[in-house]
């Protein structure tokens, strides 16, 4: 009884807390109430689907005897008898008056008492039944533990607010920190987003907002234009490097970037007056005033499409709602060129593409591979145990099947971009060249929360058509486990714990591995294929597994030996060197030198493409042909980080005032002289500021810290360090003004406003998102939504939710 009482108190408290939160914290509802109900968390949905709870004793009594205040007003007093129930009065009113009077006269006080007692017994039974149902719910799957912890969290927050030594406690900040610290234990991609961040994410995934099309940042007190979008602000005359002085006459110097962003954004169709200062401008005092119209900005994902000597080139920066349409338009444009210079081959550049929407990646892949081809499958508990969700192409490819296809990737190609590269390679539709990809194969679902925030939660892993798991690092159980060699953290797990936390790609195949999925080519793009086996275990042939790890028992029971002992290293060294005719073996990771534990096991997993080529697992997509990119040297990195290229450009333009076209010609004509000026400039700057050119890179310190943490098994910190290292390491060849300002690609997103999609859903922690054919809605037919366990019903809201599934 005490337990039942506690449970009721818990539910009551949580219910009241939820109600008060919704009323006090929801300044503006994000969607109609009905839609909110569809998007409620699963546990809440289960509760709401349950039959309505029986009325409470008091309500049952009121319902039975009609003594509510409303009924009191309606009912008329009947002589000197006690008030009769409204229901009874209604019956009486509908019967002949005489019959009614007669019936009333037959009612005795004992009958009234009996009725009352019956109602009390029924109400009591209802309470007990409700208690039992709640008890059973709480006992199931640890639901009670979750509710208890939630209540405990609330109690702690309450105590802090009431009694902490220093006042002015920001409960919101405490809550956010607490929740994100909790989620950080899982993986770097599962995060709570406050309402502002949730709104930003919405802009990034949709790629649309009302504004002028500027990327801005702060340079000291100045608000600097980092990028002006062509078709929008660029066409209005704004240029990268301009310093915004005023918006509609309001001085922006004292404002924060977010405040300026809010001034720039607004209803499409309205316009603003922008006053900027431009280095090199021939106008007096170098200021320019220009009207810029606000429009519905569409951040482009396909940023370049060219054709030269029969070979097309397409640069895709990310994957958002409009990417498929943009890609289709570009492919069509290139294919429409006829004659000897018509397109015979296409190069798709996915370098530095951090990913974005899963649906967008599937829709782009559909344009490349034949109808019916499996594009990607995802597996996670959310689909049900042993069930995976398989996406297949549901229409003929837009790209002519005879057109040769080459995809360029690098270590910053991640997530949704890896899906496209993976399907091209695994189906032998084309070649993948460049460097091994990042290896982010985790799906996140964005769950709207009361109050406008959202929960981005990892719910599944991706698998390429051959069964390779894209994910390079397993975060199982809050521990980092590397499944590829280079650039990955040392395994931080006791050897005897290893079998339990192997990633799917490295798990030993179960006894029934190899059983094909039973799915026939589906009508929709996505089908659920129920299979008893892990997708990762489908493809690797038993022969290849034997050749590498002689017996599956060795994997499961002696994995520690294979990881730790010199003998394991010797076995790896004895493996055949990849031959020149073995394209699938041309990996960045050299399997003969497992520099770190885990490498030997992970890299040896072999898979086969449709045509029988060998490809390897280990996280990410290994290129068929390795092509190294231009590397950024230490000196160059240091100059970039200190913003010296950008500062020199400012200085040079201030000294060479002239019309823009003329300045560009001068730059081309005087490169040698300009370089000399640059070296002098750097020397002066360093002398003036007593600075050295040591790179800001904290590589040595990071390495030392990593070693220290490895020694102390501080696993969580190690994960955070790994994320930090990844972010710092992603400084590549600069490609935009912001990067010459010293703002690295990944960090620049925090500077706000419209970035090129790529910098939005950037790879990792904050870490990563563009016209044509299938738009997200048209690409998501109703039957598909019915099949998707993440979506119940094919409402427009369900489509939107599907669109927000983000593979990060």
């Amino acid at each position, binding site marked *: 009884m005490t337990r039942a009482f506690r449970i009721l108190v818990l539910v009551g408290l949580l219910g009241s807390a939820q109600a008060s939160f919704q009323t006090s914290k929801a300044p503006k509802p994000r969607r109609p109430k009905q839609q909110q109900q569809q998007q409620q968390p699963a546990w809440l949905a289960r509760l709401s689907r349950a039959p309505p709870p029986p009325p409470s004793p008091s309500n049952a009594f009121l319902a039975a005897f009609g003594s509510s205040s409303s009924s009191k007003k309606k009912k008329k007093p009947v002589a000197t008898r006690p008030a009769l129930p409204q229901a009874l009065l209604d019956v009486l009113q509908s019967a002949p008056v005489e019959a009614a009077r007669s019936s009333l006269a037959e009612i005795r006080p004992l009958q009234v008492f009996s009725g009352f007692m019956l109602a009390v017994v029924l109400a009591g039974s209802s309470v007990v039944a409700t208690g039992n149902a709640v008890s059973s719910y709480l006992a199931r799957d640890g639901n009670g533990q979750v509710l208890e912890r939630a209540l405990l969290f609330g109690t702690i927050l309450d105590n802090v607010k009431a009694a902490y030594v220093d006042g002015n406690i920001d409960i919101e900040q405490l809550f956010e920190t607490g929740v994100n610290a909790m989620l950080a234990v899982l993986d770097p991609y599962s995060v709570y987003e406050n309402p502002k961040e949730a709104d930003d994410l919405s802009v990034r995934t949709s790629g649309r907002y009302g504004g002028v099309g500027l990327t801005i940042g702060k340079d000291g007190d100045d608000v600097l234009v980092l*990028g002006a979008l062509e078709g929008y602000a*660029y066409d209005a005359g704004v*240029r*990268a490097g301009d310093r915004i002085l005023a918006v509609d006459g309001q001085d922006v110097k004292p404002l924060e970037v977010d405040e300026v962003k809010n001034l720039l954004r607004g209803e499409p169709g309205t316009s603003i007056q922008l006053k900027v200062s431009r280095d090199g401008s021939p106008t007096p005092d170098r200021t320019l005033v220009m009207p810029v119209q606000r429009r519905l900005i569409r951040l482009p994902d396909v940023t370049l499409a*060219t054709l*030269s000597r029969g*070979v097309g*080139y397409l640069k895709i920066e990310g994957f958002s709602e409009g990417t498929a349409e943009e890609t289709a338009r570009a492919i069509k444009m290139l294919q429409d060129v006829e004659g000897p210079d018509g397109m*015979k081959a296409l190069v798709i*550049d996915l*370098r530095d593409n951090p990913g974005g929407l899963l649906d967008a990646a599937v829709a782009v892949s559909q344009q490349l591979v034949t109808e019916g081809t499996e594009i990607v499958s995802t597996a996670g508990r959310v689909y049900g145990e042993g069930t995976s969700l398989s996406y297949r192409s549901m229409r003929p490819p837009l790209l002519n099947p005879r057109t040769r296809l*080459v995809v*360029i990737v690098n270590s910053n190609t991640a997530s949704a971009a890896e899906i496209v590269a993976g399907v091209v390679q695994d189906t032998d539709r084309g*070649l993948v*060249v*460049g460097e091994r990809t990042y290896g982010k194969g985790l799906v996140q679902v964005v769950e709207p929360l009361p109050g406008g925030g959202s929960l981005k939660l990892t719910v599944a892993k991706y698998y390429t058509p051959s069964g390779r798991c894209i994910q390079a690092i397993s975060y199982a159980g809050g521990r980092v486990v590397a499944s590829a060699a280079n650039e990955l953290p040392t395994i931080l797990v006791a050897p005897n714990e290893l079998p339990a936390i192997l990633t799917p790609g490295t798990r030993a195949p179960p006894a029934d591995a190899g059983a094909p999925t039973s799915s026939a080519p589906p009508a929709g793009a996505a089908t659920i294929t129920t299979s008893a086996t892990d997708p990762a275990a489908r493809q690797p042939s038993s*022969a290849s597994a*034997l*050749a590498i790890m*002689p*017996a599956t*028992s*060795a994997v499961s029971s*002696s994995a520690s*030996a294979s990881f730790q002992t010199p*003998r*394991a290293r010797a*076995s790896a060294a*004895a493996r055949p060197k990849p*031959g020149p005719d*073995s*394209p699938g073996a041309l990996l960045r990771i050299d399997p003969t030198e497992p520099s770190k534990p885990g490498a030997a096991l992970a890299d040896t997993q072999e898979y086969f*493409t449709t*045509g029988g*080529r*060998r490809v390897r697992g280990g996280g990410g997509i290994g290129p*068929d*042909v390795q*092509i*190294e*990119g*231009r590397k950024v040297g230490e*000196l160059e990195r240091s*100059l970039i980080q200190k913003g010296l*290229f950008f500062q*020199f*450009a400012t200085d040079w333009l201030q000294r060479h005032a002239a019309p*823009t076209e003329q*300045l*560009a010609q001068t*730059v081309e004509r005087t*490169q040698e002289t*300009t370089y000399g000026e*640059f070296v002098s400039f750097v020397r002066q700057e*360093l*002398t003036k500021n007593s600075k050295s*050119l040591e790179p800001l890179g904290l590589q040595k310190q990071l390495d030392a810290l990593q070693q220290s943490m490895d020694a102390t098994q501080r696993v969580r910190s190690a994960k955070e360090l790994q994320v930090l290292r990844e972010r710092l390491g992603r400084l590549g060849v*600069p*490609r935009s003004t912001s990067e*010459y300002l010293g703002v690295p690609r990944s960090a620049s997103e925090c500077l706000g406003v419209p970035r090129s999609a790529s910098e939005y859903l950037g790879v990792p922690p904050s870490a990563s998102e563009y016209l044509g054919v299938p738009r997200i809605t048209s690409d998501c037919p109703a039957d598909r939504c019915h099949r998707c366990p993440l979506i119940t019903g094919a409402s427009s809201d369900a489509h939107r939710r599907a669109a927000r599934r983000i593979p990060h």
Partner: protein
Amino acid sequence: MLTDERLDEFRTNKEALLLDVREALLGRLTPPTQRRAEQAATDPQVQQALELAANEAEYTRLLRPAPASAPAVTVPPIADGATLTSVQEVIFPPS
């Protein structure tokens, strides 16, 4: 301060640094699309990818599966104490 050693680096890294100087300037003077097109034209990865795509014979060869080769690999035993009698057979010592 720039040491002599650092000044030497400006000479040895001139090609890459000159590209950066040029891009830092032209990035503020020319349209982003033009910049991207010019960057792609000098990008070694893009150029090699374009060459491979244009070379039908090489492209086809790389897409062909490697000829089936017998797994004549002598892999030492992985598990401690196990002995290997053939490529596909591992005998574990009696426990």
